[in-house]
C-alpha cells in the first residue's frame, strides 16, 4: 500500500513556472589533489525529476552539494533560478538554502532530542516563523505524508522509512524550488525504500522539481524522467525515459 497522493497545495514553485531551474556550466570542484567534479554542464528544467547515477566516489554528492549551496565550485558557474550560487556570501547561501532548497540524506539527519514534529517545524522556525504557525504547517505535511500519528515520537523510536518521511516533510517545509535527495533509500529495506520512492514520485507528479542520487537503477527508472550518468566527475551519458505507467 502506498501513501495517499499528495495535494499540490503543500508545494511551492511548480511546473507551471517554466524555464531552467538549475543551470550548471563547466563546474569544477577540487579538493587538494582530488578532482571531484571535472567540468560538469547540466540543465534541469522546472518540474523535472532527474536521477544521477554512477560508481562510488565519482562526484555525485559533490554535485548535489554544489546545487544546494553547501559548497562553492572551484570554477564554472551554478545558477539556480537566476541566482549564481558561487557568488553568494555564507549568509546569503544560508538564506538561499532556506528559500529554494530541500534536502534529504541517506542517514536522515534528524535531531535526536527533538520530536518528529519539532524536527520538521525547525526548518520554518529558523526563518523566524512563530512556533505555533510552524507546527501547524508541519502537521499539515505530516498528514499529507501519512505519518501524522507519529508526530510526537522521537527519531530513535521511528522506523527507517518513517524517519525518511519525516526528513522529506522537513525538506518541504519552506516550499523549496528544488528537492535534492542523496541516496534517500540507501539505508532502508526495500519495502520502506519503495514507500519513500512513491512519495517522491507523487511529489514530482504534482510539480516538485527533483534531483535524486541513487545506485539503484530500478528506482531511478521508476522515479525519474531523465537519467544522468556520471563517472570520474564527468557526465558520461544522459537518457530521457518514458514515464512509467
Amino acid at each position, binding site marked *: 500500500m502506498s501513501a495517499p497522493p499528495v495535494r499540490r497545495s503543500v508545494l511551492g514553485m511548480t511546473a507551471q513556472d517554466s524555464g531552467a531551474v538549475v543551470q550548471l556550466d563547466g563546474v569544477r570542484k577540487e579538493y587538494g589533489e582530488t578532482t571531484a567534479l571535472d567540468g560538469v554542464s547540466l540543465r534541469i528544467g522546472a518540474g523535472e525529476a532527474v536521477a544521477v547515477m554512477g560508481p562510488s566516489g565519482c562526484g555525485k554528492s559533490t554535485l548535489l552539494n554544489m546545487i544546494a549551496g*553547501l559548497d562553492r565550485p572551484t570554477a564554472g558557474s551554478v545558477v539556480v533560478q537566476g541566482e549564481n550560487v558561487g557568488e553568494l556570501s555564507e549568509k546569503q547561501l544560508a538564506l538561499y538554502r*532556506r528559500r529554494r532548497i530541500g534536502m534529504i540524506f541517506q542517514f536522515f539527519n534528524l*535531531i535526536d*532530542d*527533538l520530536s518528529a514534529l519539532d524536527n520538521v517545524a*525547525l526548518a520554518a522556525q*529558523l526563518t523566524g516563523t512563530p512556533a505555533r504557525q510552524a507546527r501547524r504547517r508541519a502537521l499539515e505535511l505530516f498528514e499529507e505524508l501519512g505519518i501524522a500519528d507519529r508526530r510526537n515520537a522521537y527519531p*530513535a523510536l521511528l522506523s527507517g522509512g518513517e524517519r525518511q518521511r519525516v526528513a522529506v516533510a522537513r525538506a518541504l517545509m519552506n516550499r523549496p524550488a528544488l528537492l535534492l535527495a542523496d541516496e534517500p533509500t540507501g539505508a532502508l529495506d526495500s519495502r520502506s525504500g519503495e514507500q519513500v520512492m512513491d512519495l517522491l514520485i507523487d511529489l514530482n507528479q504534482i510539480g516538485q522539481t527533483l534531483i535524486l542520487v541513487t545506485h539503484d537503477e530500478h528506482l531511478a527508472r521508476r522515479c525519474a524522467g531523465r537519467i544522468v550518468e556520471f563517472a570520474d566527475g564527468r557526465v558520461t551519458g544522459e537518457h530521457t525515459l518514458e514515464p512509467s505507467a
Partner: protein
Amino acid sequence: MRAVWRTARAAVRRRLLQTTVIALVTLTSTAALVVALGLVDAASAPFDKAFAQQRGPHVVASFDRAAASDAALARAARQPGVEAVAGPYPEASVALPQDAMTFGLGRQITVVGRADPDADVDRLDVWAGRWATRPGEVVLNRDRDWAPDDLGKTLTIPSGPRLTVVGFAYGLSGTADAWVTPGQADALAPRASQLLLRLTDGTSSEDRLRAGLATVTEELPADALTAARTYLGLKERVSGSARAYTPYLMAFGVLGISVSVLIIGNVVSGAVISGFRHIGVLKSIGFTPGQVVAVYLTMISVPSVLGCALGAAAGNLLARPFFDFVFSGPDAGILHGSVSIAPWVNAVALLGMPAVCVLAALAPALRAHRMSAARAISAGSAPRAGRALAVQRRLAGSPLPRPVSLGMGLPFARPGRSALTLAAVVLGAATVTFATGLATTMDRFGNAGRGAYDLTVYVGAHEDGREIRPEHGDRALHELLAGLPGAREVTARADVEVGMAGSAQEVMLEGRRGDRPRLDDMLTDGRWHRAPGEIVAGSAFLRQNGLRVGDTVRLERGGRSERVRVVGEVMQTNSRMIVGDWRTLRALAPDEDPIAYHVLLRPGADADAYARAARAADRGLSPALTGPNSVTQTVVGSAAALTTLLALVAALGVFHTVVLNTRDRRRDLGMLKSIGMTPAQVTVMKVTSMAVLGALGSLLGVPLGVAGHRMVVPRMADAVDITLPSYMTDVWQAPALAGLALAGIVIAVLGALVPARRAGRLTAAEVLRNE
C-alpha cells in the same frame, strides 16, 4: 602495540584543536596548582622553614664569664635534651658614638666573637664580603635587602679599637649585631659568654624550652645565667604579617586546586566520551578492548603530560614574584629570601596532575572497554531521558528565536558534561567574586586615612651621616609649612612613650595638633577624641589590656600623670599605640615637639614642588610623599593575578566543552546549515548554550564567593588583631553583585565564542561528509 601507537597518533592529528586544548588546560591548571600549593605551603609556616634552614637556636643564653668557664659551659651543654650547641662565644656589649648610626646600628650593640659563620646552630648567611679572620675586622648583621655599600668603612669603638667592616652576614635569630674574631672579642672586655642551643623538643612551648635550658644550667653556679630568650618571641613578631595573608592564600589555594582538578577531569573525560563512536569503529575493525583503552590513554597522556611539565615550570617562574610580593615589609620581608616552592609541591604537580588526567580518562575508557562495538557506535544517538526531552519540547514551542531556544536546549542533551562545565563556571565565578571582594576590602583598608594628607614632612634631615636640625621652632615650622604654596591643611604629630598604671609595657601616645587631628575613616567603634583627657586605641591594645570603650586609665611620665578615658576604637595594628589630644600629650611631656607635619595639598597642587619648597625653606626638614601602599598592592596584585589565572582555566574548560559539543553535533550542525541556518545563527545557538550554563553558574558561584569573603576577611583581620570598620567588610552592593553575576556569563561566553564561530564557519558539505 605498533597499531595502538599509530592509531593514537592519527587520532591526535585529527583532533588537533582538542589536543591543544588539553595541553593548554593542563598547562594553566598545573601552573595554578603549583602557585596555589606553593603559597599554601609557604604561608603555613614561613618562619619555621627559614628558621630550620638556618638551624636557628631555640634558646639564646648568656652566662657570666666570671661564674662559668668556657669548659664548664661546654660540659654543661652536653645534655640528652640538647640536639646541638654553638659556643660558648665571648659576648661584649659596646656603646657606640652617635655617628655609628649610619651603619644602621643602635647606640648599644652586642658584639660576639666567632671564628666561623657555619656552626651546628645559627648558620649565618655571609651575603657580602667575607667573614672576619683577623683582629681589626668586623662583620655586621644586616639582611640582604640592604645595600652592602658600607663595606671597607671603619667603625671606631670609643673605648677600644678601630674595626674595618669586611662583610655582611644575616642571621634570622639576631644573636649579635656584629661579629669579630674570638681574639678581637676578648679585647673588647666581654662580660658574658653566649651559648646557642637547639633542643630535641624544639617545637614546644615556652615552658618546655625553659625546662630544657634548666637541665643545662643545673650543674652551673646559680647566678651564672644572666639572660636567656627563646625563639618563640621572634617567631611571633616575624610571622605576624605573613599570618595575615594565610587565610587568604589558603582560600585561594583551595580554590585553585579544586578548579584545576575539576577542569582537568572535565576536559579529559569529555574527550574520551566524545570518542565513543570512534571507539566503536576501532572495535569493529578488530582492536581488542585493551588496545582501545591503550589508544585513548596514549591520546590523552601525551598532551597532558607535556602540559603538566610546562605548567609546573611556568608555575615555578610565576611563584617567584608572588613570594617576593607577599613576603615583603619590615618583619615578613626578612623571610622572602628563604621562602621558595617546596620540592613536594613540584612532585605533587608533576605526578598528581598526570595521574588526575589518566584517572579521568580511565573511567570512561573502561566503560568503553565493556561496551559492545554496536553500542559504542550508537552512543551518540541513543534516545535520551524523558525530562531532557520535555525541556526541548517546551523550548521548541517558546516564542524565543529558534537558534536561542536550540542553544538553551543543548546543555540538556549532555547532562553529565554540562554538570562538569557548570562546576567549572561556578568555581570561576566564585573565584572572581571572592577576589574582587577581597581586593576592595584590602584597597579600602590600605587607603584608610591616606586621603587625609599628601605628604609628611619629617623634622630632621641627614647629610653626609650628620643630622641637621631645623632652624625654625615648632610653631614657626607649622606656620611656614601652612604658608607654602599649595598647602591646604597642616597637622603636627608627636609620639611619646608613657607608662600606664597596671601595665608593665610602655605605651606610645600619639598627639595631633592642627587642621585634621582626627582620621574618621579609621574608626570602628565609639567616637574620635574631642577634648583633653580622651583617647582612642586599636582593638589589640584594648584586648591586651582588658579595656573597653568607656573605661578610664592613668598615663604616667616623669612624675606627671593624667587620667584619660577611652572614647573610641580605631583600626590600628600596633598594640602599644594610643591616640589622644595634643593637650593630653603636652600635659605629660611639656617639652615634646612634633616629629612630623602632615600636609594636605589643594586639589591640583604639585606635591613634588611642595616638597622642594619645604626643603628649601628649612634644610632640617625631610618631606616624604605618601606613596602607594605596598601591602595592599601585594594582595590586590596577587588576587588579580590568581583570579586571572583561575578564570582562564575555567574559560578554557568551557572552551573545551564547546569544542566537544560542536564535534559531537557535527552532523546536526551540517543538517541545520543545509536547511538554512546562517553562520550568525550557529554562533548564537552555541553561545546561548554556554550562556545558560554561565548564568546558572553565576547564580551559584556568586553567593559562594560572597560567603568565602565573609568567612576569610574576619579571619584575616583577627590574625593581625584588628577590627575593620564595616565599610571595609561590607563591600557588596547590588550593582557590584549584578556585575559579578555577569562574570560567570562572560567566562562562559568567552570560552564559547571561538569554537562557536569556528563551527559557524565550517562549510556544511564538510560537516556532512563522512558522517
